[in-house]
C-alpha cells in the first residue's frame, strides 16, 4: 500500500507538471495569431513571405495558422490530467454531495475502474494507431505549403490520454489507500484526494483596496 501511495505521488507530480507546463502554451499561441494578423496587413512582410513560398515551397501564413491549432491541440490534450487532479472537470453533484467521504471514494473508485480507465486505454490504443498510420504514410499538411510531419501532433493525442491515465491511476491508488490502508495511509490518501464535495472546490479569492484580485491567495496550481 505504501508503494501504491508513493506511485500515486509520482504520477500526480508528472501529470500536474506536464499540465502546468502545457498551460503556458497559450502565450505563444496568442503571439502567433497576433503575428499572423499584423504581418498580413503589412506589404513588405507580405512580399517577403511570398518569396519564401516561391523559393522554399512553404507559406509563412499557412505555417502560422497550422501552428495555431497545433499549439491549441497540445494545450487542450496535455491539460486533461491536470484538470482531473485539480477537480476542474464538471460533475453533477446533486446526489454525491449528500454522501459520506467514504461513499464518495467508493463511487470514484468504481467509476475509475469501470468507466475512466478502460475508456482511456481504448482511446490510447486507437490514437496510437492513428499516429502510427500517419507516420507510415508520411502525412503532411493538406495545403502542401503548411507545416508537415502531421504524426508529431497526432502523437500528442496518445500523450494527452496517457497523462490523463496517470492522473486517473494516481487518484485510483489514493482511493484504494483511503479505503483499505492502515490509519496512517488512510490519512495520507485523504490529503491527496481532490474530489470531496465538502472541501471548497473554488479557490479562495480576495480583493485588495483597489479592487484588484490579490495574487497568491488562491492557488490555481495547487500544491505539489
Amino acid at each position, binding site marked *: 500500500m505504501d508503494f501504491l501511495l508513493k506511485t500515486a505521488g509520482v504520477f500526480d507530480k508528472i501529470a500536474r507538471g506536464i*499540465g*502546468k507546463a502545457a*498551460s*503556458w502554451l*497559450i*502565450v505563444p*499561441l496568442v*503571439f502567433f*495569431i*497576433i503575428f*499572423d*494578423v499584423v504581418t498580413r496587413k*503589412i*506589404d513588405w512582410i507580405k512580399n517577403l513571405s511570398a518569396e519564401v513560398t516561391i523559393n522554399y515551397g512553404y507559406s509563412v501564413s499557412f505555417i502560422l495558422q497550422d501552428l*495555431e*491549432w497545433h499549439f*491549441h*491541440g497540445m*494545450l*487542450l*490534450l496535455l*491539460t*486533461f490530467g*491536470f*484538470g*482531473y487532479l485539480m477537480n*476542474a*472537470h*464538471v*460533475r*453533477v*453533484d*446533486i*446526489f454525491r454531495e449528500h454522501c459520506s467521504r467514504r461513499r464518495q471514494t467508493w*463511487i470514484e473508485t468504481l*467509476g475509475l475502474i*469501470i*468507466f*475512466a480507465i478502460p*475508456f*482511456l486505454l*481504448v*482511446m490510447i490504443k*486507437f490514437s496510437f*494507431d*492513428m499516429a502510427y498510420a500517419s507516420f507510415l504514410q508520411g502525412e503532411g499538411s*493538406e495545403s502542401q505549403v503548411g507545416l508537415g510531419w502531421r504524426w508529431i501532433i497526432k502523437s500528442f*493525442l496518445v500523450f494527452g490520454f496517457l497523462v490523463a491515465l496517470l492522473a486517473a491511476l494516481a487518484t485510483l491508488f489514493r482511493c484504494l489507500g483511503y479505503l483499505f490502508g492502515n490509519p496512517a495511509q488512510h490519512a495520507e490518501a485523504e490529503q491527496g484526494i481532490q474530489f470531496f*464535495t465538502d472541501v471548497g472546490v*473554488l479557490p479562495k*479569492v*480576495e*480583493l485588495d483596496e483597489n*479592487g*484588484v*484580485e490579490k*495574487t*497568491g491567495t488562491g492557488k*490555481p*496550481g495547487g500544491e505539489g
Partner: protein
Amino acid sequence: MLEYWEWFIDDHLYEYIGAYMFVALALALFTGLPVAFALGGISLIFGLIAVWIDAVDFQVFFAVINRVWGGDGQSGAVQNPILVAIPCFVFMGTMLEKSRVAADLLHILQIMLKRVPGGLALSVTVMGTIMAATTGIIGASVVMMTLLALPTMLKRGYDPALATGTIAASATLGILIPPSIMLVLMANLLVVSVGNLFIGAILPGLVLSGLYFVYILVRASLNPSIAPPIRDDEIDMQPGKPINILIYVGLCVFAVFLAYEGDVLGLSEDINWPLMAFLAVFGISMFIGKREGNTLFGGILKGFMPPIFLIVLVLGSIFAGWATPTEAAGVGAFGSMILAWVNGTLTYNVMREVCHRTGLTTAMIFFIFVGATAFSTLFRNVYGEDLIIEFIEWLELSPWPLLLLLMFAVFMLGFFFDFLEITLIILPVFAPVIRVMAPAFAPHLGLEPGTNQAAIDFVEDQVIYWFAILVAVNLQTSFLTPPFGFALFYMKGVAPSSVKMQEIYRGIIPFVTLQVIGILIVLEFPQLALWLPSLVFGK
C-alpha cells in the same frame, strides 16, 4: 425463457440499444463522476455490447478518435481552427479579471447613476452588460462581480435577495453576449458561421439586459427601502481640470485627422492609419486618465476606455470583416494583456495564475468534448438518432408545439446540467429535427419557403441561427436555475457568510422569470436574432 432471452438480444436490444444508452448515461451522470468519464465509460460499455450483438464493429472507436481529431473543416477538437478561439477567449476573460478594468467601470457607473432609484443595482447591470461584451466566459466573472459589488450593496442596505439576483443575472450575460465560448461551440456543432451567431446574439442580450434594468428600476421606485439611494456627500467628484480636457480633445482630433487626411501630409500607405489613430486615442485616454486622477473626467476615461478598446478590437474586427472570430480572439487576448500592463497588474505571478486557470478551463471544456464525441459517435452508429426521430414522429406534433417542447426540455435540463453537457450532447440530437422543420417556420421569419436548393439551404440556415440563439438564451438561464445554477454556486463561494443560500435562491426567481420572458420575446420576434447579421453580412 430462453426464447424470450433470444428475442431480447436479437430484436429488442438490437433495435433499442440507443434508448438504453441514453438512460444509462442519465444514471451515470448522476453518480457525480466527472461528466467526461461518464460519457466515455457509457459509450465504451455500450460499444462492447453493440459489438457483442453484432451491431457495430470495434473499429467504431477509431471513428471516435477521428472525430476527436477533426480535420474535415467542421467537427473535431484538435485540427479545428474555429475552436482555437476558445482558449484565447478564456485567457482574455481570466486576464481581464486581473486587471482593474471592472472595478474602474463600476466606480464611475455608480457615480453617474447615483441619483436614479436603485442606482447601484443598475450600475451592476450596466457593468455586467459592458463586461459581457469583453469576455466570453462566466464563472470567473460572477466571482469578480460578487466580490466587487456585493459587500458595497449590503453595506448600503440593499435587500440581499435583490443584490444577489442582480449580480448573478448580470454576470451570466457574459456567456450570451459575444464574444462567447458557448456560441463558438454551438456554431461548430451546428456547422454555421461563428461571426453570424455572435452578431445575432447581440440584440437578444441587450433585450435581456434591458429587462433587468426596467425590473430593478420599477422595484426600486416602488419600494425604496430595498435599494436605498446613495447619500450625495458620500461620493463626490470634481468634474475635471479644463486644461486636461482641452489637451485630450486636441490630441484626439489630431489623431483622427491623421487617420483620414494622412495622404495630405504624405504619410506612408503601408501602415493602417485608422488603426494607428484608434490605438493613439486609447493611449491618450489612458495617459490623460492617469494624469487626471480621481475626477469625473478621469474616471470616465479610465472606466470606459478599456472596455471600449477591447470591444472595438474583438467585436469591431469581426463586424468589419477584418478578422475571423479566431483571430479576433487572439487579438482580444493580447489586448487584455495590454490592459493589465497599462493598469500595472501584469506580473509573473498573475501571468502564471492566468495561464493555469486557462489550462484548467480549456481541459474542462475539451474533456467533455472528447466524451461527448465518443457518446454521439456510438449513438449514431447504433441508429440512436433514428430512434429519436421516430419518437418525435410518433408524438405527431406540429412544428410549433415541438419547438416549445424542445425549449422546455432544454430549460428543464438546465436545472441539473451545465451548458457544456447540454450543448455537446443534446444540441446535435435536436438540430436535425429543427432542420427538417425549417420550411414550417419560414413564414414566421418573414421568408419564403425555398424552391431551389440554395433557397432551401438559406431558409434552413436562418431557422438554425434563430434556434441557436433561442437555445443560447435558454442555456444562460441554466446558470441561474437552482439547485444547480453554476452562477449561484460561484456566488455563494465568495459572498459574505451572512448571505444565505435561501436568499440567493429567492433573489434569482424574478430574474429567471425575466429570462423566460426574454426567450418568449425572441420566439415571437425572430428578427431580433436575424436582422443584425443580415445587415452586416448581407442577404
